[in-house]
């Protein structure tokens, strides 16, 4: 990865303290839903930059294509037709990793170094360390990571950490024709969002606002919403996302056991022990996981 080890602020299943010599400011991508026309240039740019191509799918009766996030589609547009006060609105939200300040995926991840958070706020998957357990999916309040059918590893948006590391904006931002996607220091993005919110209010969207949910410590991907009071209108954007209680338990009570388990992983006897072993808490976690997979 292009970001260096001295930029790593957190690492999954690792107790070694993070380096702190270099001071980095936090970055953020701002998605101004009110200026988004749903053209999917961001999806195309994501495929091109990351050199991944999803399957040529089907039309499922909507503009959404691919119909969902996948190991090869790290961002998708979600289209919602909403009627508010007799007025039709077509709300189009770019979905993908939110890069939480307090990342549930990283917390849940039992594989050392499979998930890292950089000091600039980007949460990145290092697939070479991924054991494919899917706990990151359970840990994610936004239902973002996806396991590849090809190699069994988890994938999601990297916020183009490789581009950001060399001073470039993420590919999606670079490609956005209307300026609905902006990228910069998080504080700067919040200032910009304030202007956009004021403009929306002047156009009759009284509840316009910034989506930067505190339940996950804020995010490094933020939305400007016309209806910030009801994020669920935007195809189920959670109104108050937080990390699952299961993950907290896992990281709290079961942590010592997890460490044992991870030693086993390192030896190659794998997560069978973690999931089938004598740990009641992780059994519950497993159940929840199966439930999710079944959906």
């Amino acid at each position, binding site marked *: 990865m292009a970001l260096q080890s001295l930029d790593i602020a957190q690492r999954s299943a690792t107790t070694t303290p993070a380096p702190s010599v270099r001071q980095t400011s936090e970055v953020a991508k701002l998605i101004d839903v*009110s*200026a*988004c*026309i*749903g*053209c*999917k*240039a961001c*999806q*195309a740019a994501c*495929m*091109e930059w990351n050199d991944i*191509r*999803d*399957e*040529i*799918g*089907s*039309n*499922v*009766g*909507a*503009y959404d*294509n*691919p119909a969902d996030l996948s190991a090869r*589609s790290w961002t998708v547009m979600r289209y919602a*037709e909403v*009627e508010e006060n007799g007025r*039709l*609105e*077509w*709300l*189009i939200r770019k979905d993908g990793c939110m890069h939480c300040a307090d990342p549930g995926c990283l917390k849940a991840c039992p594989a050392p170094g499979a998930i890292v958070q950089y000091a600039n706020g980007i949460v990145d998957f290092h697939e070479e360390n991924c054991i494919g357990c899917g706990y990151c999916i359970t840990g994610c309040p936004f239902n973002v990571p996806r396991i590849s059918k090809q190699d069994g590893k988890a994938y999601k948006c990297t916020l183009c950490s490789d581009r950001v590391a060399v001073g470039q904006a993420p590919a999606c931002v670079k490609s956005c*024709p*209307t*300026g*609905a996607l902006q990228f910069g220091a998080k504080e700067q993005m919040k200032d910009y969002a304030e202007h*956009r919110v004021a*403009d929306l209010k*002047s*156009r009759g969207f009284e509840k316009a606002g910034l989506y930067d949910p505190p339940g996950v410590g804020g995010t490094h991907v933020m939305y400007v919403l016309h209806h910030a009071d009801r994020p669920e209108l935007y195809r189920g954007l959670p109104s108050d996302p937080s990390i699952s209680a299961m993950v907290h338990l896992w990281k709290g009570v079961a942590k010592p056991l997890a460490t044992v388990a991870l030693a086993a992983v390192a030896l190659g006897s794998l997560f069978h022990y973690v999931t089938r072993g004598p740990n009641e808490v992780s059994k519950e976690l497993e159940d929840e996981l199966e439930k999710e997979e079944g959906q």
Partner: protein
Amino acid sequence: MTNHWVDIKNADLVLVMGGNAAEAHPCGFKWVVEAKKQRKARLVVVDPRFTRSASVADYYAPLRSGSDIAFLGGVINYLLANDKLHHDYVKAYTNASFLIDEGYSFDDGIFSGYDAAKRSYAKDTWKYQLDKEGYAKTDPTLQDPHCVFQLMKRHYGRYTPELVGKVTGTPKEQFLKVCALIAETAAPNKTMTICYALGWTQHSVGTQNIRTMAMIQLLLGNMGMAGGGINALRGHSNVQGITDMCAYSDALPGYMSAPTDADADYKAYLEKRTPKPLRPNQMNFPQNFPKWFVSLMKAWYGPAANEKNNFAYDWLPKKDGAYDVLAMFERMHQGKMNGFVCQGFNPLAAVPNKKKVGDALAKLKYLVIVDPLTTETSEFWKDHGEFNTADASKIQTEVFRLPCNLFAEETGSYTNSGRVIQWHWQAAEGPGESVSDTEVVARIFQKLKAMYQKDGGKLPEPILNLTWPYRIPSKPAPEELLMEISGKALGDVFDPKDKTKVIAKAGEQLAGFAQLRDDGSTACGNWIYGGCYSQAGNLTARRDNADPSGLGQTLNWGFAWPANRRIIYNRASCDPAGKPWDASRSVIKWLGDKWGGNDVPDMRPDAAPDEGVGPFIMTPEGVARLFAPALAEGPFPEHYEPFETPLDKNPFHPGNAKALNNPAARVYKGDMEVFGKAKDYPYVGTTYRLTEHYHFWSKHVAINAVLQPEQFVEIGEELAKEKGIAGGDRVKVSSMRGHIKAVAVVTKRIKALDVDGKKVHTIGIPIHWGFKGLAKPGFIANTLTPFVGDANSQTPEFKAFLVNIEKA
């Protein structure tokens, strides 16, 4: 565009109607967003569907496809009835005060001079009253009952909000809200820009749709202003360029009208196209027609075109009938064509009534396809199951495929919608045996010439004498071609004011079309591009984005035709005294001794305001035409129903069957018979494009195929419920001419409209699918569409026709 892309940011109101800019022009649409963000502009969208543009609009109103003139005529009536006009502008810069022939009339949908048998008009009453000197008479008080203003008031007085609603289906309060927003821009310091595209052109009244809007912009004083204008957003990335070069049958490069059988000789041809001024002191710029024409002939024939042979006039083909795309396929269908060269064109997919097109192609002896991709047309003869049922054993057409380069594989120029010609450089070598289109044409030409040289033949001169001065004859360089298009001095060119002064020496590139001569001393391949490659070099390759005015007038970026002017009619951005109507958006102004400012003035540089030279220099009267006799179906736009209409009468003329559809539109025998009726095909079908795809090309590209993999149609929830169709179901959509099958997208964004007491549903049909490419194979949408076009341009009526739908 009269204005340009960046200028959209200067608008106070952006109207998107007859197009879907966010969908089809997402990159240009950034300037709409910019106007909203920086200027607090409002965006209004009027469309049969709640589109991607509508998703970011401040206000949306629906209308029935094919009823735009009713809507816009209603806006004119609103502006006149509520006195929301830019009065000084209308008086000074339009023909509102001009008196019209007393014989002119309009009676129940038909203008004076109609010949029902010929489906055309004699226009002898659609003209100005002239005085002894041959100038048009005017009434500056606008009171004379024969003045344009009064005639217009009478004509559009019928377009009441009630009747408009009855025809368009637009709820009255929504219509009035749009009127009120538009009317605000009558203030001299407010402008509206209108972004339209094929949603206006692809109707049997397409040209008049646009003219109605032009009238509105004139009444509001928005023409020539920064943030104003009439802005056609062109589709294909160089379709503006192809229009400018006039690769059409009825025009020569630079929109010069081509000779026809009716032009007896060279002199008569020129006289007919060189108008006399209709008001005193006007520039009457088309009076220069002979200079443009002679220079074109010199560019084509060099020394072989000279005064002795009328500059080779006799070698030009004289049109003996229509040769537009519909006319061509009609001829082919009648078996009157042997061969067809099809370059950068996929007619099986792009021309209406696929069955007729396929049958027509099967009657050819040979078909040559020049294309970078495998087009459906090149396999019209091959069976592709239900997508293309064909029996190759019964088709004798020999098909040749000549692979050519894609845009990124060659150097050349693009002309964008804003008339800015921009040079581009080759990025990659083409694969395999592909060569540039230029090389394909050059090599065919050389072969033909050799054959004529060897074997003779009928009238070989036009081929044998064509000048071909390129360094490598089989590969004319793009730079050589641009230099030829731009123009050069063949002999010394003298200053008309001082005959001893040479302004361009023989062999030099010319500075612009003002230096063209009709004596054979200049050559120019396209007068409107004059000066784009001057002695200073290739100006289209400039990339200086300095914008000192902040208006986006980047005069050193590329080269805009004409004369590097970014906003045409910009003299009209000033009052008659030469002062800008809006000083904060000053385009040009009178500087005391000359015109100048932030653009190239669209005016003789030293024409003092008190000379009264009108800003619309391309008309012999110097003003813009609210009453315009040039179009086929009338001097004022009138609402006519599409050829396939859900109504049985035109609500404006319920008693006159002749006025149901465009009375001047051409309909071929056999096509009228396959127009559907509402009792069999009750729904309005309309075709369109999607952001994810580019015509029939991008289905060959993996990324685009991933983003929109499979053919679909869009229907409203109410109709879906009625028909028991759920989103994701497969449906069959049929018209009189055939059927397609696709996935149904059920949406709130298409609503049933109440039209003349009848509920009218619309079915949206994206066009991008076919049987070649990476995306899932699909049906050609133009299987459904009717073979009829606009009465002036013959652009097919793709936007409004009748269909039925059922679960497949």
